[in-house]
C-alpha cells in the first residue's frame, strides 16, 4: 500500500513539474535572429570577423559585461521581453545572391527567426531583403553600403550604416580640404596638382555603385577622372589593371576592393613601383585587420574610408571598453566592418526591447521610432535613427591613414573629419622605393 502511495506521489510531482517547468523556462526564452554573412569564399576572412563581433555583442546583451558603461551591458537579456536571450543563427551565403535568398527562406520558414541581419555584400543584401519583404519579416542591415538598398521603398528593411554616397562625399571633402589647407599638417596643395583621379573598383554591386558615385562627385567638385576600371574581385591576376593605372599617371588613385583583391592590387602596384600623391581605398578590404597585418609597412600613407578606427577608443569610452573585450578575446582591434556588426546586433536588441514583442509589426513600428543615443554606441555617430526609407540619418564616416610609427609598426590615424584628426596627414603618398 505504501509503495502505491509513493508511486502516486512521484506521479503527481512529475505531472506538477511538467506544468511548472515551462513557466520557469519561459523567462529563459530565446529570440532567434538569422545572420547571413560570407563565411566561406573570397570574403571569408571578413565574414568570420563579422561573425565574431556579432557573437560577442549577443554575449554582452545576454550575459552582461561589467566593465561596459552602457545600459545594454547590464540587461542580461532583453528586459522588456522577460530577459529573453538573443540567439544568432548564422548562415553562410558565400557572396552568392541566390544562395543568400535560399538561406533567408530557410531562416524565416524553417528556423522561424524573428528577423534577419547581414549580409555584408550589397548584392546579397538585395536578394535577402527581397525575401524578408515578401514574408513581412524585419531585416536590419549592418554593413552593406550600396545607396540603392534604401531607395526601393521597402517596409521591412532598415540600414544602420551610412551609405557610399555619404562616404564618397567625405573623400571629395578631404580632397577639397587638401587644396584649401584644411588638412592637419599639410599646406594648401594647388588644385592642379590633384586634378587627375583614377579609380579601380571591383565590379559587383558594391564597387560599381561607388564608381558611379565617384564620377558624379568628381564632376561636382571639379576633378577629372583619367582612368576608370572595373575588375573582378576574384581575379587571380590584376597586372593589366595595375599597368593601366600606372600608365595614366594620376594624381590620386581610388579603389573599391574586398580583401584578397586589395592585397593583390597593392602588391602588383608595389612591384611596378607605382607613384601617385593620394592613395585611397573605399573601406571593405582596405580596413580589415588582415590588410594591415599582411602588408605591414607597405601601406604607409594609404587612406581608407571607414566608420571606425581603433583611435576612436581613445576619445569614446564605450568604444574603448567593447574594443578591449574584443581584443582580449580575438587579438584584433574592432574595425569599421566589425564595429558595424556590433551596432547591428545592438540595434536589433534595442528594437526588440522597444517593441516589447517579437511580433513583426511591433518590431517594424519600433524600428521606425528607434532612437539610440550617441553615447551608447561604439561608433563616433550621432546615434541610430531611421528615416522613412529605413536609412540611419545619424551615421557618419571617417577617413583614416595608415602611418608608420617610430617603432616600425603601422597604425591607423584619423585624418577626416578634420576636427577629429589624430595625426598629421602624410602628403604626398610616399609610394614604394
Amino acid at each position: 500500500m505504501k509503495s502505491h502511495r509513493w508511486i502516486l506521489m512521484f506521479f503527481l510531482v512529475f505531472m506538477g513539474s511538467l506544468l511548472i517547468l515551462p513557466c520557469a523556462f519561459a523567462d529563459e526564452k530565446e529570440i532567434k535572429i538569422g545572420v547571413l554573412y560570407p563565411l566561406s569564399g573570397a570574403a571569408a576572412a571578413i565574414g568570420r570577423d563579422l561573425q565574431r563581433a556579432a557573437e560577442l555583442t549577443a554575449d554582452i546583451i545576454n550575459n552582461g559585461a561589467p566593465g561596459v558603461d552602457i545600459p545594454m551591458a547590464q540587461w542580461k537579456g532583453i528586459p522588456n521581453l522577460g530577459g529573453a536571450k538573443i540567439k544568432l543563427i548564422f548562415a553562410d551565403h558565400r557572396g552568392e545572391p541566390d544562395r543568400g535568398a535560399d538561406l533567408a527562406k530557410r531562416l524565416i520558414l524553417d528556423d522561424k527567426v524573428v528577423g534577419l541581419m547581414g549580409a555584408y555584400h550589397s548584392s546579397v543584401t538585395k536578394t535577402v531583403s527581397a525575401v524578408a519583404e515578401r514574408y513581412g519579416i524585419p531585416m536590419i542591415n549592418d554593413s552593406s553600403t550600396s545607396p540603392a538598398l534604401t531607395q526601393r521603398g521597402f517596409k521591412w528593411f532598415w540600414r544602420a550604416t551610412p551609405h557610399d554616397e555619404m562616404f564618397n562625399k567625405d573623400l571629395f571633402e578631404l580632397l577639397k580640404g587638401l587644396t584649401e589647407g584644411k588638412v592637419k599638417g599639410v599646406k594648401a596643395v594647388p588644385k592642379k596638382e590633384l586634378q587627375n583621379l583614377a579609380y579601380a573598383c571591383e565590379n559587383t554591386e558594391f564597387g560599381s555603385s561607388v564608381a558611379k558615385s565617384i564620377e558624379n562627385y568628381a564632376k561636382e567638385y571639379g576633378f577629372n577622372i583619367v582612368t576608370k576600371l572595373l575588375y573582378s574581385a576574384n581575379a587571380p591576376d590584376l597586372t593589366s589593371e595595375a599597368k593601366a593605372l600606372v600608365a595614366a599617371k594620376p594624381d590620386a588613385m581610388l579603389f573599391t576592393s574586398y580583401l584578397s583583391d586589395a592585397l593583390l592590387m597593392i602588391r602588383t602596384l608595389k612591384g611596378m613601383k607605382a607613384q601617385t600623391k593620394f592613395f585611397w581605398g573605399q573601406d571593405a578590404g582596405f580596413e580589415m585587420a588582415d590588410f594591415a597585418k599582411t602588408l605591414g609597412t607597405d601601406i604607409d600613407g594609404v587612406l581608407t574610408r571607414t566608420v571606425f578606427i581603433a583611435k576612436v577608443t581613445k576619445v569614446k569610452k564605450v568604444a574603448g571598453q567593447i574594443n578591449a573585450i574584443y581584443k582580449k578575446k580575438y587579438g584584433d582591434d574592432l574595425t569599421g566592418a566589425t564595429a558595424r556588426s556590433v551596432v547591428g546586433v545592438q540595434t536589433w536588441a534595442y528594437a526588440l526591447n522597444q517593441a516589447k514583442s517579437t511580433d513583426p509589426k511591433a518590431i517594424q513600428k519600433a524600428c521606425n521610432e528607434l532612437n539610440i543615443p550617441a553615447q551608447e554606441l561604439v561608433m563616433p555617430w550621432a546615434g541610430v535613427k531611421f528615416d522613412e526609407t529605413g536609412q540611419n540619418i545619424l551615421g557618419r564616416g571617417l577617413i583614416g591613414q595608415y602611418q608608420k610609427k617610430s617603432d616600425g609598426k603601422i597604425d591607423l590615424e584619423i585624418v577626416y573629419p578634420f576636427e577629429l584628426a589624430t595625426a598629421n596627414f602624410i602628403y604626398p603618398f610616399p609610394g614604394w622605393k
Partner: protein
Amino acid sequence: MEAIKDALNFSDFSRAERISLIIFSLFLLIFPLLGAGSFTKTVMIQFLLFSLFGMGWNTIGGYGGQVELGKAQYVGIGAYTVALMMVWWKIPFWFSMPVGVLIALGYSFIIGYPLFRLKGHYFAIATICTSLVLKDIFDNWTLVGAAKGIELPIHEHPDFVYMQFKSDTYYYYFIMVLFYIGLFYMNWFRKSKLGYQLRMIKDDEDAAESLGIDIRWCKIKAYSIASAFVAVGGGFMAVYNLYIDPTSVMELSLSIKIALMAMLGGAASLWGPIIGAAFLVPLDRFLGSWLGGYKGLIGVDFMIYAALIMVVSAYQPRGIWGIIEQLRKRGS
C-alpha cells in the same frame, strides 16, 4: 504526332529504369505535400533547375562530345530578357521567356557558326572566352544595370502573369513542368536523326563526314538547342530570385557547374544530368549550410565536395551512371 509518341516512349529502357522513373515522378509530384522544410524545397528547385541545365548541355556536350564551358552566357540572356522586359515595359513572364529563348537561339547561331571551326580544347577555350566577354559587356553596360544588376519589382499578391508567388511550392511545380518537358524532349532527341548524327560525330568525325553528315551544321543545331534549354532556366532564375546581376547568371563558375553536373552524372545518357544534379546540388547546399553555418566548420564542405568528384571521376570517367551500369553488368 510521331515525335510526341517517341518523346513519351521509354520502352527501350530496362524495366528497372522505367519503374525507377515512375517512383521518382511520383515522389516529385507529392514532394511538397510531404511537409519538408522550406530549405529542402529550395534545394529541390535548384536540383530541377540544374537538371534542366544539364539536359541542355548534354545535347552538345554529351551526345555531341564537344566540351562546352560557356553555357552561363545563355542563362544570362534568358534571365536578362525576362528581367529587362518586365522592368522596362512590364511585359509578362509568359511572353518574355519565349523571347529570351529566341534571342538565345539567334545569338547561339551567330556565336556557334565561327566557334565550330574549332575542335577539342580550342573549342572549349573559345566557349569560355565568349561567355566571359559577354559577362564583361554586361558588367559595364549601364543600360542593363551594369554590375549593379536588375531588381524585379516585388508584387504583394501572387501573380501568375508575372510569375510572382510568396510560396516556393508554385515555383517548384512550375520548374517541375519545365523539367518534364526537357526530359521528354531529350528522350525524343536521343532517338532523332540529329541525335544519331551527333553520336556518330562524337565517335568518328571523318567517318561521319564520309557518310554525308554536315558536321558543322549538326553541331551548331545541337549547340543552339542546348542554349535554348539553359535560357529557359535563366528566365526562371530571374523571376525566382527577383534580382540578377552578371555575377550570379553569367559567371564562369556557373558554366562549369552545369557541365560538371552532366559529366559527373554521366554524359550522353538521358539520366546522367539528373543523377549529377541530384548528387551535387544537395551536397553543395546542405553541406554548405550545415557545416558552414550551424557547425562552424567553414570550408569543409568544399573539401568533401571536391573529394567526391575526384573519386567518382577517377573510378569511372563515364560518371555515376557509368558506375551504375558497371554494377548492373556485374550483377547480371
